């Protein structure tokens, strides 16, 4: 068995004091060790942003890629070796903004990875512009008269695209988030965990207290996540209350299950066969 300390590293953390990211980081370590995973068993892939720096702050295999592209990279990594446990750390801008197209298509493929979106409704690393999940009217230095587009609701879209594991967490409920991540990793198929997160520096609206007042724990309520309509209804909630937990879960064949040759073993483990190819290249 492993412990959370196994995942500690001594790389200097670069987040602001009080940032919600710390909770998510902590929950990740706990869920990995609870699942008996060691650093060598975990591959973290991330885009670019404050959220996407996460993999640097724990010991693991990791690939810190480009803004918006983590899911595409992760999909390739999984196809090459579908034995890997892959978790993606992304931000609301990274995943739903620049990466919007890959988000939709990762779901359509049901590729078996766990996506954690650190959703602070703002672009943190670039100093506080609106993100796709910012509410209409949200004022920033750039959106000085407030945001004028409808916010993007990742849960609704994921549910409608047929995602088989759709969950919401709150960064500061660490135990709850730990459970979500465990469930997400255990789920065979694509898992979306949208984790709402305070950004004390740039988001003065949805603060720790604001969330605290609203979150409602679905685990505690023994909610059974098998009803798509319920899930869709809950996904609409925000202003009054925010359900946290697994909204919907349903397993089905994953992308690599559907590629016949991968059902017999990983791509990386196959043998190179020069002789077979020679047959193709003979002139007679």
């Amino acid at each position, binding site marked *: 068995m492993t412990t959370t300390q196994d995942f500690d590293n001594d790389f200097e953390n670069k987040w602001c004091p009080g940032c919600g990211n710390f909770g998510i980081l902590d929950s990740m370590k706990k869920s990995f060790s609870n699942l008996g995973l060691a650093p060598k068993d975990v591959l973290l892939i991330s885009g670019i942003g404050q959220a996407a720096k996460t993999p640097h702050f724990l010991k693991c295999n990791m690939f810190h890629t480009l803004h918006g592209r983590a899911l595409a*990279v992760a999909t390739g*990594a999984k196809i*090459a070796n579908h034995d*890997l446990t892959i978790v993606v750390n992304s931000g609301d801008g990274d995943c739903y903004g620049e990466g919007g197209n890959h988000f939709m298509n990762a779901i359509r493929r049901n590729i078996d990875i766990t996506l954690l979106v650190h959703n602070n409704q703002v672009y943190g690393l670039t100093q506080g512009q609106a993100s796709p999940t910012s509410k209409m009217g949200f004022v920033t230095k750039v959106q000085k008269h407030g945001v004028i587009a409808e916010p993007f609701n990742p849960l609704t879209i994921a549910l409608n695209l047929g995602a088989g594991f759709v969950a919401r967490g709150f960064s500061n409920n660490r135990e709850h988030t730990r459970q979500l991540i465990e469930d997400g990793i255990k789920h065979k198929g694509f898992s979306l965990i949208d984790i709402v997160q305070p950004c004390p520096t740039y988001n003065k609206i949805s603060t720790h207290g604001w969330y605290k007042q609203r979150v409602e724990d679905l685990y505690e309520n023994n909610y059974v996540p098998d009803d798509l309509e319920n899930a869709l209804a809950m996904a609409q909630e925000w202003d009054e209350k925010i359900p946290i937990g697994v909204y919907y879960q349903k397993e089905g064949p994953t992308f690599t299950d559907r590629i016949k040759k991968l059902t017999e073993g990983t*791509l990386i483990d196959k043998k*190179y066969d020069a002789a077979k190819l020679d047959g193709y*290249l003979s002139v007679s």
Partner: protein
Amino acid sequence: MIKLKNDIVVIIGGEAGQGIQTVGDLLATVCWKMGLYITVVNDFESRIRGGHSFVQLRISDQPNSAPSDKVHILAALNSKTVELHKGDLSEGGLVLVDGEESTAAGVTAIPFSKIAREVGGKIMTNTVVAGAIMGLLGTPFDIFEELLVKKFGKKSPEILDNNITAAKRGFESIGENSFKNGFTWEKKIPLGLLLTGNKAVALGAVAGDCRFSAFYPMSPGTGIMNALVALTDDFPLVVEQVEDEIAAVNMILGAAYSGVRSMTATSGGGFSLMVEGLGLAGITETPILIVNAQRPGPATGLPTRTGQPDLQFTIHASQDEFPRFVFAPGTPAEAFDLTVKSLHLADKYQVPVVLLTDQYLTDSLFTLDRPLKVPDSIDRFIITDEDLDNPESYERYAFTESGVSPRVLPCNGNALCVASGNEHTPDGHLNEDADNRKRMMDKRNAKLPAMQKEMSAPSGYFEDSDILLVGWGSTQGAIREAVDLLRERGQEVGCLNFTDMWPFPVEHSQRLLGRTKRFIMVEQNSSSQLGLLIREQTGLSFDGTVLKYDGRPFFPIEIVEETLAIIG
């Protein structure tokens, strides 16, 4: 290379959707099976039905790989074919049209579609046309029949029978009109395969142990993917069509990071979208292969035509500087070899590689002049815990003299694979210090001298001549043929054909170009990009340019004429 002896050119023209490409393929295969050399050039519009398209078959008992400006047999399935190509008929050339009676002198009417309808339906027209042309050429019919059995044998006996009858009727329709330039047909074993550039790259990819490919369709890159898909059932290869080119390049990056050799193929527009990913491969030292099958731009340009306009773009693509390889094969055999080499070098140096082909090379069908060689085994340049004294202290980007750091795979032992597209310390973690930054840049750039040593010199042909024609990529065949033609006219001309473009083979170029009196650039772009690159890299200046950028491949004679105008 000596002057082509038997050199017969056939054009079959019609609308898109009439299946003239099938006629070309049938004829080519029969000729190839007889041991002849073929070049089949497909000329088609960016549409699915209608319009005008044609195939040009060049058949010879000597290697050839350029289209010809002269035509001996013109088979016209529409009137536009006659209109457009009649002017190219050589003395004694024949025109075949679909019909009962000839309408003009030099035009032979053969009731292609009538025969087809009689033997089983309009769809048989192609086979009749192929039969007729073979009749004209005097091909032994049994080879054609064998081919039809192979092609239609798996379908119903009726379809096969009808096709054989159609072929026979076509074959016989020619009557006594036996074509005067006809070959004497003696069956020889072909020296090489009959292959398109597309297929050559795909086979090279499998030979180079490529196991994953993600792509988004874009002509002429799609052909490579089609050819790869055709191999997926037999080899450990997954090919996935994805949402866009950005996904394509990033997926192959993920797969390569995970440990399998990976590639994508596209054309200029898609390559543009991959440029950021190329840089990620650069800074994370992840081996990937991108094939940019060039076509004319800018932007959408001419989707189904050919050109060489992306050399400088490819060399400089993506922000900041990092080592990369760029190769540009001149023939399908080189395409095969360079694909194998690209995958090998990507792994060896942990860098991205771009293979530059173009529509002409990828879509055309050629007889190879030599067999293709598959590597016996693949060296992955990957280490594991066993190779390390202390796997726990392993560093992905350790400083080394060569700039290449030992590479582990993720989740493959206690040595962790930590990679970052931000500037990083040897352990892979992001870092902004000035000193570390400089050292990391120098580490990556330190690969360049060894990479440059991997570059082959441009291949020469009469390369000691006073005047050299200099080109790169798929113009190789046309330039060499132009050299033959120029020498026939008494000009002391040779040529150099570059395939290994970057890191630029500076020493080879200085040696080979430094000793000639004059050199003339022959390129399919409007600014002579290789010429400029040679000047940038060697200080040597070209003395003239033969540039074609209308989307069509060079005819050798065009190079001859423009060269003569320059050398006076």
